[in-house]
């Protein structure tokens, strides 16, 4: 059942609405879609801002820090590329808490709601980099 050599599902990275997320990640940057007209966060990314009516938007580079909003330890394997257990995390960005991003931590992560999380970048193929999340390293005192 568990075939760890199965290829990871690679994301479509050239969708007109979401490509900028992956282009930024390939540069080692975390970016979310924002409206040029009113600075609203447009996440998941869409072209049109219904708040102000603008079609003009940008990929805003944001800090790779956030807080853990929720998580689940997946114990029942559903895909050959993802051997269980693993932990899926949902992280609110420090800069823009209305945007939540997903990450994966191998195994059973020991987590607490609201804990500090940090982004890192995982190259999963020659042309695809995924922004990932892990518990932030303790601050040096």
């Amino acid at each position, binding site marked *: 059942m568990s075939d760890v050599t199965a*290829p*990871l*599902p*690679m*994301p*479509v*990275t*050239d*969708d007109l*609405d*979401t490509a900028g*997320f*992956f282009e930024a990640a390939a540069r080692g940057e975390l970016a979310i879609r924002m409206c040029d007209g009113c600075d609203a966060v447009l*996440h*998941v990314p*869409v072209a049109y801002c219904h708040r102000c009516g603008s079609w003009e938007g940008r990929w805003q580079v944001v800090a790779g820090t956030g807080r853990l*909003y*929720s*998580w*689940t*330890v*997946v*114990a*029942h394997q*559903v*895909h050959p*590329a*993802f051997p269980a257990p*693993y932990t*899926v995390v*949902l992280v609110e960005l420090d800069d823009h808490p*209305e*945007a*939540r*991003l*997903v*990450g*994966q931590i191998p195994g059973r992560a020991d987590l607490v*709601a609201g804990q500090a999380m940090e982004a890192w970048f995982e190259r*999963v193929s020659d042309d695809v980099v*995924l922004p*990932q999340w892990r518990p932030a390293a303790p601050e040096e005192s």
Partner: protein
Amino acid sequence: MSDAYSHRDKCAIVGIGATDFSRDSGRTELSLATQASLAALADAGLTTGDVDGIIRCDMDNVRGNDLAHSLGIRDLTYLGENGPGGAAPCAMVGQAVAAILSGQATTVLVFRSLNGRSGRRFGQSPVEGARVGGAGSYDELFAPYGLLTPGQIFALMAQRHMVDYGTTPEQLGGIALACRARANANPAAQMHGRQLTMDDYLAARMISEPLRLFDFCLETDGACAVVVTAAERARDLAQPPALIRAVAQGSIPEPQPGIQFPVLMRESITTLPARAVADTLYRRAGMGPSEVDVAELYDCFTITVLLQLEDWGFCKKGEGGPFVASGEIDLGGTIPINTGGGHLSEGYIHGMNHVVEGVRQIRGTSSNQVAGAETCLVTCTPLPPGSALLLRAA
């Protein structure tokens, strides 16, 4: 938001039909749909010659014309469709009401048929092939991280509800046990002969923490169908009509696109579209939660029920757990739920078996009959938009 034209009590469900519920039907989905439809028509005292409308769910493999052909319906004047998936059944009944009251049909068959265990399984990862996402699915932002199934999404919601309100596994287990107890009294339920204790529930394997095996509904092969017609005509038919007091569809503000994953971006992931559907339905019905005698709540997972107990106003936000633990959802409680056993223990016909069971409650023929039940709420309010019905005795 005017309700200038009211559909209140103007139409009724007059026939109900269901196939057996199993893990391997050995029949096509068209055969199952045909069987359930024939049963619903016979129940109503009608024939295929009376049917002039058919409404399907967008995720059904059976099209309206497939069923019309199979049944030999000759004078079809209305074909409708609703979705996505589990959001459909009550909305499909609402579409039947709309077709009838606008003169586009008189007798409408509403059906859902699926080989949900032996055929396509919703709980499995749908992700295959080299690239995932695009085309407005947004799967590219989720699937590459191993977030692949509805159960994993609801696990994230359950975890957050536990963080915010202190909800416990035992409280979720109380929902699984209530549904199982109802199934134990319903000979048609897949879990009819299988008891479930809290120890069993807690000892069962984790699927996606904090959700365990019995927090998940039953992948099921089967079909259900109902017949809708004008209330005036319903009086002359074979069964006591279940009047459609009101029907509603709805979506929360910032509903998020797609079928499932983007709902994790909602301001609160512990509020379902049920909250918005409830406001509209209660307003249209001129009734509130205290007037509902029994509720068939969409239960793809236990947490889906817990969130809806709050969204539908049976208890306050955050108090779903203690409400369950106090026995309020059991027979004899303030709001008995899922009296056929629900998706968790009867079968998962994607919301449609809840409509059938709701009609049984109004007729007084449920195997878990709520004494004196005159008003039944049926909900189809999982992740994306949702729908619901209030049924009333004539």
